[in-house]
């Protein structure tokens, strides 16, 4: 039973991964991160964010953007 279950899961993994879908996921994540940068800018302009937080979060977002752009370039 365990071996059959492992095969079924492996088959599922093989069926569910294709480059087109992966690119769509990365594109969606990129749009989401870009929208978050806009929100962060708005919050910062309103003066609602502590400075350490906004600096660190901006760095995390930049890092994520770079990773996603690299991933998309590879998939294309």
């Amino acid at each position: 039973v365990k071996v059959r279950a492992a095969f079924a899961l492996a088959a599922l993994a093989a069926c569910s991964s294709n480059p087109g879908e992966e690119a769509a996921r990365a594109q969606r994540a990129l749009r989401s991160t870009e929208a978050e940068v806009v929100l962060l800018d708005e919050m910062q302009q309103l003066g609602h964010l502590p400075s350490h937080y906004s600096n660190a979060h901006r760095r995390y977002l930049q890092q994520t953007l770079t990773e996603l752009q690299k991933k998309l370039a590879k998939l294309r």
Partner: protein
Amino acid sequence: MKKLLQLTLGIMTALGGFVDLGQIVFSMQAGALFGYHLLWTIALGAGAIAIYMEMCGRIAAVTGEAVFAVVRDRLDRRLGLATLGASNLLNLLTCAAELGAVAIVLHLLTGINQQVALMGGALVLGALVWLLHFEWIERTFGLSGLLMIVFAVAAVKLRPDWGGVAAGFVPQLPVGGGDRLLLYAYFAVGIFSALLMEYEVHFYSSGAIEEGWKPKDLPQNTIISTTGIALGSVLTSALLILGVLVFLPRGIVPDLLSTTILPVALPLDPTLVKLALGGILACVASAAVETALSGSYNVCQFFNIKWDKNLPPKKVPQFTIGWLSMLGIALVVALTGIKPLTLVNFSIIFGMVIMPLTYYPILKTAGDRAMMGEHATKPWQHGLAWVFLVLIVIAALAAVPLMILTHSGQPQ
């Protein structure tokens, strides 16, 4: 006052247990993707954990036995050992993820280097557990976790559609089929699982024994478990509501712990944002402590080794080495740089897979008249516990295929 402070066991268990790193991000993502439609999973999970947590506390008070002594006695030896190994592996992964989250929050709060924050954070947590008696551990983390109320305040200030919130507690399928339905099912299973993470019952039942509960404390058990879970559920719902109000209209799917602070900043000032960060810090630190201690409690209970957090560490050497090792290995894992959210997502999904093996022995023992006498589970509660166990088994079977099919919940 003392009675009020006793509630901190339930609060710490619930906040560290199900308002941890995974649940904070998961709930906001669920709100950002499906609006209020997944609120019912919080109510369902809260109902399930309320029933089982009460049973654990009752077993501990009546028989003086904690969860892993029950697992040892109820399951076949090999299956019991496998459950112990799998549970402690999950505790270790979760502990590593929560330590990583502690470092991220310290970095966000102070700007201190993240690796330094990670080592410093682990050292401080280790020192606190070493120095404090059990009741002070639960008071420190339980009370500081109350800072999370800031999230509920922010959710109310942003004026959600209360009709939509109420409708969200009725199970319903999302619009759109295929991939969206799978994603919905993944988040439903994920939220349900995160609310029922095994270490909550490991920690709660061990805590009941640390506090020396007896049958006369049973009313207190019901109050403590219910209060903690009610608070945890309100906060988890507030996180999901914030996801709906702030992220859904902007097309943002939060994928970072730091993102979860932004909704608080919208209606509140920077001081309250810092308090919200403090609340998250308390919850993730609490989860790290709970998982490290639970790992050691489990081994000691399974092999009948002396354990007691209220004794000096040298008097219970194996127990002390156990939790210190959990914390130390988790620190090494976190130092490798694996993303805490990746780790915690795995532990939530694989935690679901082994969940029936933890909850079934609890159900059987709590209902056993020979062991529990007049305190055995009432028929209505026993029936309800079976219904939840069936749901747990269904979710356990679906968890891994859903994780594969949705690429760990990544929308297209």
